[in-house]
């Protein structure tokens, strides 16, 4: 008997004819609230991300003095400041500039899904500075809204603030293995 059959047999023996209960979903579902940009900003700042509210992304990037910058292939070239020092290997980069897929206002979370403007997962992991551009129409109210928008077959990275740890006396301190600085550019492209 394979371990697979053994385990499944044990599970069936253990369960007998256990009924499947109904799942009450009385919590606030997807679509129950409008996204509030002010809440997103508040939550991002609370977890030590820096927020810029502008459509002029190149200026933000330039002002951060990013050093060697890596960008995924699908990033809009107009986001790059003139004279940016671009590198192709994330191992050599000081900073990374990506887009995002969804942002969750209530939790201050940004989700990347590996699309061409967000890149392979490692690209947004190794550089110490992550500049992430979020379009205002990508902002949703809460976690259920994000789940409804995301494609689970893609590799997803949910990011809430810079890398942090609570392992020392359960106090949160920022800056461990992931990017130690997270700058979010909240860009409204719908009204010029």
């Amino acid at each position: 008997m394979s371990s697979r059959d053994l385990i499944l047999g044990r599970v069936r023996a253990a369960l007998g004819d256990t009924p499947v209960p109904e799942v009450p979903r009385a919590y606030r579902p997807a679509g129950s609230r409008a996204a509030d940009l002010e809440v997103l900003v508040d939550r991002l700042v609370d977890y030590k991300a820096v927020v810029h509210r502008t459509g002029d992304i190149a200026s933000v990037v330039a002002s951060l003095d990013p050093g060697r910058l890596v960008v995924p292939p699908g990033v809009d070239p107009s986001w790059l400041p003139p004279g940016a020092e671009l590198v192709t290997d994330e191992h050599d980069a000081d900073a990374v500039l990506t887009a995002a897929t969804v942002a969750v206002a209530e939790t201050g979370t940004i989700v990347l899904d590996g699309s061409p403007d967000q890149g392979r997962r490692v690209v947004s992991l190794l550089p110490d500075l992550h500049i992430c551009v979020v379009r205002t129409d990508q902002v949703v109210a809460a976690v259920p809204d994000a789940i409804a928008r995301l494609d689970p077959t893609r590799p997803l990275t949910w990011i809430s603030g810079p890398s942090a740890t609570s392992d020392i006396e359960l106090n949160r301190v920022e800056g461990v293995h992931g990017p130690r600085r997270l700058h979010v550019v909240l860009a409204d492209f719908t009204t010029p």
Partner: protein
Amino acid sequence: MTRTFLGMPATAPRGVGNLRGDEPFPAAAHKALADDQLRRNLGHATGTIRRKSGAVVAELPDWQELRAAGSALKAATMARLPELLEQLEEKVTAAGGVVHWAADANEANRIVTDLVRATGQRRVIKVKSMATQEIGLNEALAEAGIAPVETDLAELIVQLGDDKPSHILVPAIHRNRAEIREIFLREMPGVDPGLTDDPATLAAAARRYLRETFLSTPVAVSGANFAVAETGTLVVLESEGNGRMCLTLPETLITVMGIEKVVPAWRDLEVFLQLLPRASTGERMNPYTSMWTGVTPGDGPQSFHLVLLDNGRTAVLADEVGRQALHCIRCSACLNVCPVYERTGGHAYGSVYPGPIGAVLSPQLTGVADNASLPYASSLCGACFDACPVRIDIPSLLVHLRNKAPHPRTERIAMAAAAYTMDHPALYTRAQHAAKLSGRLKHLPPPLNGWTASRDLPEPPAETFRDWWARR
């Protein structure tokens, strides 16, 4: 395993893994209670997390509705476990992963060791995982000449300090910043001798120490918080980015997961991703959550193995009342609110699963005889039930397991005698009068001397209530 028990739910085997302690809880607690530093560290840390978690839980007006949904989702998952596991296997396989089934700790360790050997590597990087702690994977790998490197800061502190984890979420919760600095100075190769005990500086030291290891180790081992049967998606929540490193940099990723971690549908994550961070680290959301489905060409590990682990879980599942313990999402909120855990710390529980959830999970995984003192390691105050994001009724489970635990012979006799007396009012009245005649006792004999060691007994009253009532 003998042929007789094939197909029957089995407890976790002895001689492997970390589910059994060396001594009963009261004896282990005796040492912990005498450690003033430990008491202060625990009091400080659990107080901090209780305040943080309380604040972010209060932000959600639908917290109770989310708990109810989480609880029912877990119960529904258990009831559908066979089909969900088969579905998960199918989806992971279709997405390019390989699924393995491990009946117990020995088999899981063998599977992982063989997979690492096949890569020719002698070192693996690890993301914090309770399942691999439970089965003693690090010990098994070391025996096979493979070095496991823990990359979670707290696990690293434990590993460098040759210590044992004492908390589900923060395995080094028993250490304060000064002690962590000492451990780093003593054990971390290449550490700055001027290291201070500032937490940010300590975190930076871990970053420098592990960076090269991340970049040069092509095999990683992880656990999983959730696995979605509907899509084959694995989910790991973490804070530091060490998880992202392990889940994306290596060529080979091996994930070891208890069979109870499966969730039915993608949508169900909308419940658990709201419950877990707030109950666990007291954050609205943890800094990083990684989700992957099999293998993504050109992005992350190109070889993915999922090991589904039983190791006693089916024995827990066989107990209609006790199976609730399998609903646990390892948030550790029950530890943080437990007055017993706060004073004894996690080591006193002997198992990798300490605190209230450990007191109901460990004895069921091993069979209650092997952890017989744990169901009694609680005053039944109920704080754990209130804190549990999936509403596991831990106090009722404790009482249930006490009823299954072996009882000392003298206690059995005394309890039977007491019950008999109380079922016979005339005898009961006589016993009351006898107690009064004995007067106020200062020191009781064992096992009652535990009371009089620190507490006076009340003065027996001049008359019992029923005597007073009778002459009214």
